[in-house]
C-alpha cells in the first residue's frame, strides 16, 4: 500500500507538491512512483534559475528498470534542485516525501491556481482505480 500524505497535492503523473512557508513549492515524486520505478540509480534535477512551463519535463529519474521524465506540476522558476540526489539517488526511494524532494520552485503569478492538482484523497482513489 502506497503512502499518500494528506497535506500534499498531487498530479496524475505522480508528482507531489508541498507549499513551503515562503510560498515556494517543493516538488517530488510519490511513494507509488518510486516503488513502480524500483531502485533508482540516476537522478537529474533542474538548475536554479530555469523557467519551466506547466507539464514541461524538468527532471529525469532512472532506475535499473526504466528512465522516466518528471513533469513540472506548476509553471514557475526553479530556485533549487536537490543536489544530494546526484550522489545518493537512493534517497528518493527511502524518503520520497522528505529529503528525496527533487526541486523547489517559485510559481509564476497565478500559476498555482491554474495547475491541475488533486488532493490526497483523489490521488489515492486514482491509485486504487489503477489497482496499484
Amino acid at each position, binding site marked *: 500500500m502506497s503512502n499518500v500524505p494528506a497535506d500534499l497535492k498531487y498530479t496524475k503523473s505522480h508528482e507531489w507538491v508541498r507549499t513551503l512557508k515562503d510560498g515556494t513549492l517543493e516538488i517530488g515524486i510519490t511513494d507509488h512512483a518510486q516503488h*513502480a520505478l524500483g*531502485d533508482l*540509480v*540516476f537522478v537529474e534535477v533542474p538548475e536554479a534559475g530555469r523557467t519551466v512551463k506547466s507539464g514541461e519535463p524538468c527532471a529525469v529519474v532512472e532506475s*535499473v*528498470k*526504466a528512465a*522516466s521524465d518528471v513533469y513540472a506540476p506548476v509553471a514557475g522558476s526553479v530556485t533549487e534542485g536537490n543536489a544530494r540526489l546526484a550522489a545518493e*539517488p*537512493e534517497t528518493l526511494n527511502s524518503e520520497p516525501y522528505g529529503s528525496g524532494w527533487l526541486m523547489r520552485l517559485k510559481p509564476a503569478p497565478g500559476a498555482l491556481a491554474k495547475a491541475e492538482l488533486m488532493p490526497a484523497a483523489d490521488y489515492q482513489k486514482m491509485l486504487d482505480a489503477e*489497482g496499484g
Partner: protein
Amino acid sequence: MRVREKVIYEYSHPGRGASDQWPHDPGQAALSDLPATLRRTRAPELPEVGELETVRHFTRLSQLNFSIDTHFYPLGSCTMKYNPRACNQYAMLPELLARHPLAPESHGQGFLACMYELQEMLKAVSGMEGVALSPMAGAHGEFAGVAMIRAYHRARGDLARNEIIVPEAAHGTNPATATMCGCVVREIPVDAQGDVVLQALKAAVGPNTAGIMLTNPSTLGVFERHIVEVARIVHEAGGLLYYDGANLNAILGKVRPGDMGFDVIHMNLHKTFSTPHGGGGPGAGAVGVGARLLPFMPIPIVGKDGERYRWLAESDLPQSIGRLSAFMGNAGVLLRAYIYMRLLGREGMRRVGEYATLNANYLLKRLQAAGFDAAYPQRRASHEFIVTLRRQARELNVTAMDFAKRLLDYGFHAPTTYFPLLVPECLLIEPTETESKDVLDAFVTAMSQIQKEAEQEPGRVTSAPHTMPVRRLDDVRAARQLDLTWKPTAQP
C-alpha cells in the same frame, strides 16, 4: 554446468604470447605519421596469454552463453529466431569474404548484384519505392529516417516543422531518435485496447508537425487498428509517417507498411531477416522510403545501368542526407539477409508472418489457460504478447524479474521484462516462427512449475537463479558504482 570463468587478465604471465600470431614489427616508420603528442608514452596493460589458453578462455565463455543455438530465447521485441546455417555458408564464400571495399566496381559485380537484389526485395516486401542499406543498426536506421523527414521539410522551406509525435506504445528508441535529430517529442496516449487515441492525435498535429513515429504492431503486441485514419490525420496536417520496423516479423508478407501510408521505414535485418544478433550486433537497419523521400536517401546505394551495377553517390543524389557508415555498412549482415530472403522466397516470407503470429497466439492461449493474466486479453496477439504478473507480485510478493531469473534454471532465456513501461510487472514474450510446438509446451510447463513454486516456496523463485555460473547479481549496485576496468590490486 556451473563454472566461473576468470577474466583473461588473470591468466596473464609476463612474456607469454602467441608469437606466430603477432603482426610483423612495423618499426618506427608506421608511427611517423602520428604527431608525438598523440602517441602514448607507456605500453597499454594487455593480458599476456598463450594461444591455447586464449582459445580455451573464449571457448569456455561461449559455452556459458545463452544463445539461440542452445536455448529457447523468447525475448520480446527482439525477434530472436533461428539463423539458418545456409545463410552463413554462402555469405562466407571466399569471393565475398575476400572482396576489398575499395576494389573497382568491375571486380565486385557479384556482390553489387546481391545488394541490388536485396534492395529490390526489401522494396517489394515493404511496399516502399526506394531502399538504402547502409545504416548499421535499428537506431541508426531511425536516425536516417528522421533525418530524411527533416531534410524533406527543409527542402520545401517548411522550416517550422520540428515536432515528432510518438505514441506511448511506440518503441523506446523513437523519442531518443527524434531528439537526436533536433526535434521536439510530443507524446500521445493509447487507449485501454492499445490503439492510438485519435482525439489526442488530432489535438497534437499542426503546422509544427514534422511527422509521427509508429511501431505497428506496437510494443503492446497488438496491431494499430486506426492506422489508415492515423495516416490521413498526419498527412493532412503536412507531416510524414515513420514506421519502426521492430515488429515487422508479425506482418511480413501479409501487410506492407507502404500500403498503410507510411513514408519511411527502417527494417531490422538482424531481426526479421534472421541474421545473428545479440550482445550488441552487428546489425543492419536498412531504410525504405516512399516517393517524397527518394532524393534524400543515405548513400551509397547500388544502381543498375543496363547490365552493370554501380554505386550511386553524391552526384546521383545531390540532396542525400549523406554517408552514415564506411562503405556498405555491415556488408556481411546484408549478405546473410539477402540469402535468407532468397531461401524463403515470396511464399516462404508470407509463412514467416503467419507462423510467428500462430506461435504467439498459441503460447498466449496456453499461458492464459495455465492461469496467467494477459495484459490485453480482448486482443489477439501479433507476433508477441504481454503477460502481467501484477497479481503474483501483489499476492505472493514474487515479481516478473523473479520469474525471469527462475526461467534460466529451467533452461529458457527470459522474455523481455518491465518493457513496455505501460504495463506493470510485465513479460513481453516473442516465440518467433522457428520454434516447435514441443518447445512452446515445455515453456508453459516451466512457467506453471514456477507459479507453483511461487505459491509453495517463494524463496526458491525470489533467490533464483540457482544453476547458473553466477547467482542473482546486484544490478542496482553495479549501476550506482560503475566499475569497468580490471585492476591488478583488486585481486586476492
